[in-house]
């Protein structure tokens, strides 16, 4: 009954306030992303000369006519050209006619000038291009001059390559911690062994430890092991940093599974390993899915871990690093930055919208990642 009264459809002034405020907030939240998306389809010239919001219908001055200043005009007094009246200085700045629809601008010097007639007309953006994406995804070819004088042409590290690298980093960094954490969660939930409590307390305590604390020692280990700049190193790092939350979340789910099912499986002679594979994994799919989305988004969007453990090696760089690098080196090339940023956002957005239900469930069961 409460639900029925809550969302009544008949006219109600407070409902308009509610929906109006909500609409304003949603628009405010969408505006920045929308601007990025629109800009990524505009040419470099358009981006530099007019804002992305000019794609909406608006009125602007459009030059319709250009001609030389008539020779018989008295240039030192007050002149009238096409209904606009003013001195030379005023025309230089532009004079608007009385009806407001025509603007006259004097270009050049006093003696040999040109008159530009502009009309105030409706306009909207219609120049769309995919060239930004072509440039970002394909990358440019560079010619490198060798010491011996020969020239080699090399493909610059492109966003497509970085996209593949992001996938290679993200998929195992999502699956491996889930696998390890699921085993551990089952062990903590349904097995009896000494040290169980203290080990789980460690998991809880490590939930909020900031990963900055681990960067220096792990980097030292990696340098010794030669793991720096390898995919394996990054996978293990993401596994290590994600494992506490994974174990905690999955324990929360697996420990609430009905005891009867597991016990009857035991009585039928199934081993722990069989129960885990045949019963626990299928039953905990919702929990596994929610953590998988978490970890996927987290790893895909991560910058710090990649920055430190992948470093500057261009052949293994992930998308976030490429973009950050581009912000530093070509911060004003908005046509490339916007397209690049959108390329990096497209996959997480798809995953997010298709699996939002699981993501929300994970958030509600969730905790804080260190």
């Amino acid at each position: 009954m409460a639900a029925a009264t809550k969302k009544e459809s008949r006219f109600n002034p407070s409902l308009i306030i509610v929906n109006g405020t909500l609409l304003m907030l949603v628009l405010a939240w969408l505006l920045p992303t929308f601007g990025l998306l629109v800009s990524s389809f505009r040419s470099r010239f358009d981006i530099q000369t007019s804002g992305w919001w000019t794609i909406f219908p608006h009125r602007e001055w459009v030059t319709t006519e250009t001609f030389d200043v008539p020779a018989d005009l008295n240039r030192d007094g007050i002149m009238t050209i096409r209904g606009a009246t003013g001195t030379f200085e005023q025309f230089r700045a532009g004079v608007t006619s009385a009806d407001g629809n025509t603007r006259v601008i004097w270009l050049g010097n006093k003696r040999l000038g040109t008159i530009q007639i502009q009309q105030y007309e409706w306009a909207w953006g219609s120049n769309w291009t995919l060239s930004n994406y072509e440039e970002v995804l394909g990358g440019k070819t560079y010619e490198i001059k060798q010491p011996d004088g020969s020239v080699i042409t090399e493909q610059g590290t492109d966003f497509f390559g970085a996209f593949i690298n992001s996938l290679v980093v993200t998929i195992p960094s999502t699956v491996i911690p889930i696998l390890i954490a699921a085993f551990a969660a089952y062990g903590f939930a349904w097995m009896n062994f000494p040290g169980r409590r203290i080990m789980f307390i460690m998991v809880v305590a490590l939930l909020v430890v900031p990963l900055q604390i681990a960067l220096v020692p792990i980097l030292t280990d990696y340098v010794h092991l030669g793991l720096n700049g390898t995919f394996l190193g990054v996978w293990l790092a993401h596994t290590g940093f994600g494992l506490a939350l994974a174990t905690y979340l999955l324990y929360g789910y697996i420990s609430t599974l009905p005891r009867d099912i597991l016990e009857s499986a035991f009585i039928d002679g199934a081993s722990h390993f069989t129960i885990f594979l045949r019963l626990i994994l299928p039953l905990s799919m919702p929990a596994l899915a929610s953590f998988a989305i978490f970890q996927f988004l987290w790893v895909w969007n991560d910058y710090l871990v990649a920055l430190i453990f992948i470093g500057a090696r261009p052949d293994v760089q992930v998308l976030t690093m490429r973009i950050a690098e581009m912000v530093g080196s070509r911060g004003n090339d908005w046509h490339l930055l916007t397209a690049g940023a959108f390329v990096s956002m497209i996959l997480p957005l798809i995953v997010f919208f298709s699996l939002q239900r699981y993501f929300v469930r994970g958030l509600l069961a969730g905790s804080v990642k260190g």
Partner: protein
Amino acid sequence: MEKRVEVKGIGSAEKLEQPTGPIAWLLTNLLRIAVALFVPILTFLGLYAGFIFLRDSNAPKAIVAVVAIVWGVGGVALLYTVSNWLVEKLGTTWRSRIQPFIFVGPAVAILVWYLALPTIRTLWISLFDADGINFVGLQNYVAVFTDRDMFTAFRNNIMWIIFGASFTVIFGLLIAVLADRSKFENAAKSLIFLPMAISMVGAGVIFGLLYAVNPNIGLLNAIYTSLTGNPPIAWTASAQIQPWNNLFLIVVMIWLQTGYAMVLFSAAIKGIPSEILEAARVDGANEIQVFFQIMIPSIMGTVITVATTVLIFTLKIFDVVWVMTGGQFNTQVIATQFYREYFTAQNAGYGSAIAIVLLITVIPVMVYNLKQFREREAF
């Protein structure tokens, strides 16, 4: 008989059979530790060898990518299978003693290597000088708390916490309450939630565009210049508006995190029994009174959870600042100072001391989590 022992193992109510005699005890525990380390170390070695091979081969990128994924994921799965198969060959007693460590061991070993030990190691490094050779005691900590740059970083982090956490909570709550009464609840929530899928680096670009100095590019300056006629402002860098330029970075985090707050608040609001709300309305309470006197107290637990999460997130904030300003223009925070000192200035001791300070700031939350865990007593 055998099955009865197994049934015992599944629950935690009854005590496990303990090994008798010191030798059996020693052997059991040694084996347990060995097993706990067996899976991760062997997996690691297997993967490592594969990777060296992969790195030295000049295979096309796509093939390397596929092989790497299969190699990594398959390797881990295989090792679990093999070690389980081995343990199940043992007798019942030994199996029940060892098997839990195959399940739990790898996770615990990795957590120890990646988080627990590094905490101690970082603490240790923080007591040494830049090269990690000479013991300097607490000097790095003295430096952390007297350095002018660090002072600015602390001040900025406090600004992040105050403005970031409070606005995230306020907006999250506002949107959750409004959406709860709207017909467009799901659409509105999805759209507000959308930034959670966007990386902070991506958000840095999005807001960089919004804040661009050129009024033909940056919407904010386009509005500002046309309204006031003043020259455009570099919102994140300008010296005139410092320290408030930090607010323009904080907005990015609010934008990213409000969706999270909204989801939690929305669920909490739906959890309030509708009878209570109806009763209050029947008794003549207006919507404002219902909100402040019934809703807020009922969801106080969620408010604390959200505030804590955002607080921790805020303390560690790095990407947004690093991408948008590089920590210049007095926008540095603790995490960017850590990166700058350790990786740019190559001062291991000082950098580590900053990391330890970061850890100390989250210890209250850690203690709270542990207390919560003990109170629930799920174990």
